[in-house]
């Protein structure tokens, strides 16, 4: 059995990579992809913690997994709306460059 | 401006225009595409699945019929005419010989006219069968095609019996027919007439009443009466738009006035109706065939005028005169008087006529074929724009263009 710490470390690495992506990529969609990566890194930690907490009984332990489940729903809604914004912006502008988008007042 | 200059000018203009980026996806449908019934090329601008613009590009089957026919004798012309609209060859043959006969004032025996009508109508059925089969094949249904082809095969058998070939008959001659009917033809044709209505019913069960088919064609590609006339649409497609024009009724030829038949007409003008027009026309044509078979008269099948038709083989052995006529006819053909004629006929696709200019020589001076498919093809534009890409396929099918007819 791999200890939880490793998962947390992996999760933090993924999270950091995602953060770099958010900071360095210019195209909005790529930024978005990186955000998804960060979200999943967090999920991984949650699932790992769920296992760590199995000593505290079924309901408590599974809360972690259930939370991830809810987060998936959240991510779905977020992506739907986020990409919706992207699409609607893109209909007027030829680029998804975030720096260029900064000028827009929505 | 010469043609060349003009072309260059247009090309330059096009080039300039291309700098402005359009939002559409431009897609080439054809010339080699399964749904374009041969070599039609359509340049389609797609706005997603919707058609924003459509331009037919034709000429991929340009055969030079008119020019070649101007360099063949009138008699040889019958081998060319049918190859234009290869699905309704007898229709073209008929239109051609009618024009030449009008030039010559040839007297066609009644029996020959009747046989021409029989074959023409059977050919119309055969053509519509191909139309129906391929049209529905274009909508993704495989099987009806095989059923219609099976029936067409039976008609082709009849044609083979009469003319010796399954397509591209060249059986009509100026002044009559090349040969009389074989004996077995009439019973065989009757047998076909008896069984065909059952087949029509089968098609109806499989398709006309099929919801998917109806939904895919109803309300698609509507062409109004005004548009139809504006674009010079003729034939069943025009009748679907509410103009009951049929030259078999309007200006009867070859004795069509003697037979009783209806011209199906509708006001709706959508693809479904265009399909149905042809579907109903099949039974009407069958009605004509049955009537002619009943009234079929005995007698000669060629104009007895030796300057027009070849003498029978038996005479060649006995009469020197016949031999001379024969030689003259074969090497040189006949010399119709100077003049220009046009005889409109109703082919399976619409108004068809040969405008012949004779300079008194043995070959036509100018042959101009008024082909229905070319004009019908133009109506694709009003029918398709604003519709879906998939509907375009239905629209092409429902116009029933034959590319040989379009490009000549």
């Amino acid at each position, binding site marked *: 059995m791999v200890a939880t710490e490793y998962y947390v470390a992996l999760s933090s690495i993924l999270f950091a990579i995602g953060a770099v992506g958010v900071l360095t990529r210019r195209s909005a969609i790529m930024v978005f992809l990186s955000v998804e990566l960060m979200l999943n890194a967090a999920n991984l930690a949650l699932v790992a913690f769920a296992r760590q907490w199995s000593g505290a009984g079924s309901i408590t332990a599974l809360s972690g997994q259930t939370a991830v489940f809810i987060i998936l729903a959240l991510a779905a809604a977020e992506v739907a709306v986020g990409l919706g914004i992207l*699409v609607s912006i893109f209909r007027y502008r030829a680029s998804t460059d975030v720096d260029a988008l900064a000028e827009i007042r929505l | 401006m010469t043609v060349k200059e003009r072309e260059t000018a247009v090309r330059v203009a096009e080039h300039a225009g291309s700098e402005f980026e359009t*939002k559409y996806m431009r897609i*080439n449908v054809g010339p080699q595409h399964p749904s374009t019934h041969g070599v039609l090329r359509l340049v389609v601008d797609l706005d997603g699945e919707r058609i924003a613009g459509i331009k037919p590009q034709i000429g991929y089957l340009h055969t030079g019929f008119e020019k070649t026919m101007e360099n063949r004798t009138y008699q040889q012309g019958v081998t060319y005419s049918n190859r234009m609209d290869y699905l309704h060859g007898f229709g073209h043959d008929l239109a051609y010989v009618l024009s030449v006969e009008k030039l010559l004032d040839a007297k066609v025996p009644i029996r020959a006219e009747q046989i021409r009508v029989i074959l023409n109508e059977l050919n119309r059925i055969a053509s519509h069968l191909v139309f129906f089969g391929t049209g529905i094949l274009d909508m993704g249904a495989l099987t009806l095609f095989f059923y219609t082809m099976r029936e067409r095969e039976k008609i082709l058998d009849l044609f083979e019996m009469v003319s010796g070939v399954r397509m591209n008959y060249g059986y009509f001659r100026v002044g009559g027919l090349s040969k009389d009917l074989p004996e077995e033809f009439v019973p065989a044709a009757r047998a076909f007439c008896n069984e065909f209505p059952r087949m029509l019913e089968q098609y109806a069960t499989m398709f006309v009443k099929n919801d998917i088919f109806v939904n895919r064609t109803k309300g698609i590609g509507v062409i109004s009466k005004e548009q139809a006339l504006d674009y010079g649409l003729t034939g069943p497609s025009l009748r679907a738009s509410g103009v009951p024009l049929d030259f078999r009724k309007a200006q009867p030829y070859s004795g069509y006035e003697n037979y009783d038949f209806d011209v199906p007409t509708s006001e709706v003008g959508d693809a479904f109706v265009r399909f149905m027009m042809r579907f109903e026309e099949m039974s009407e044509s069958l009605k004509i065939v049955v009537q002619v078979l009943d009234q079929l008269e005995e007698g000669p099948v060629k104009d007895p005028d030796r300057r027009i038709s070849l003498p029978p083989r038996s005479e060649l052995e006995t009469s020197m005169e016949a031999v001379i006529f024969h030689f003259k006819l074969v090497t040189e053909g006949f010399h119709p008087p100077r003049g220009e004629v046009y005889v409109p006929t109703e082919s399976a696709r619409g108004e068809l006529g040969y405008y012949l200019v004779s300079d008194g020589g043995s070959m036509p001076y100018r042959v101009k074929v008024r082909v229905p498919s070319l004009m019908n093809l133009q109506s694709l534009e009003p029918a398709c724009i604003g519709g879906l890409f998939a509907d375009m396929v239905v629209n092409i099918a429902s116009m029933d263009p034959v590319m040989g007819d379009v490009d000549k």
Partner: protein
Amino acid sequence: MYTNLLLMFLVAGFIGAAALVAGRLLGPKKAGVTKLAAYESGVPASGSARERFPVHFYLVAMLFIIFDIETAFFYPLAVKFKAAPAFLYANGIIFVLVLAIGYVYILKKGVLNWK
């Protein structure tokens, strides 16, 4: 149990890969510029294929996500249904009703109307 799954994937993947490799190795190669150009009914392609597409496709995929999540939430509900039918049914109905509002909204908006 999940090792079995892994094995299954390995075998399936192996077959796919083997076929691809075999095809690569065994077929003749006579590439030419025209041969490798995109097929467009036999004429040189006009314009690029990578064009923008209508937004309908986006909407379909978007709705799919939303309703896919909905089904995902229904699986636990359905599996547990026998344990507390009335309670779960009530909850399920509320859940469905909330989403039904969204469904009616998209119907009204004509999203499902491709015409």
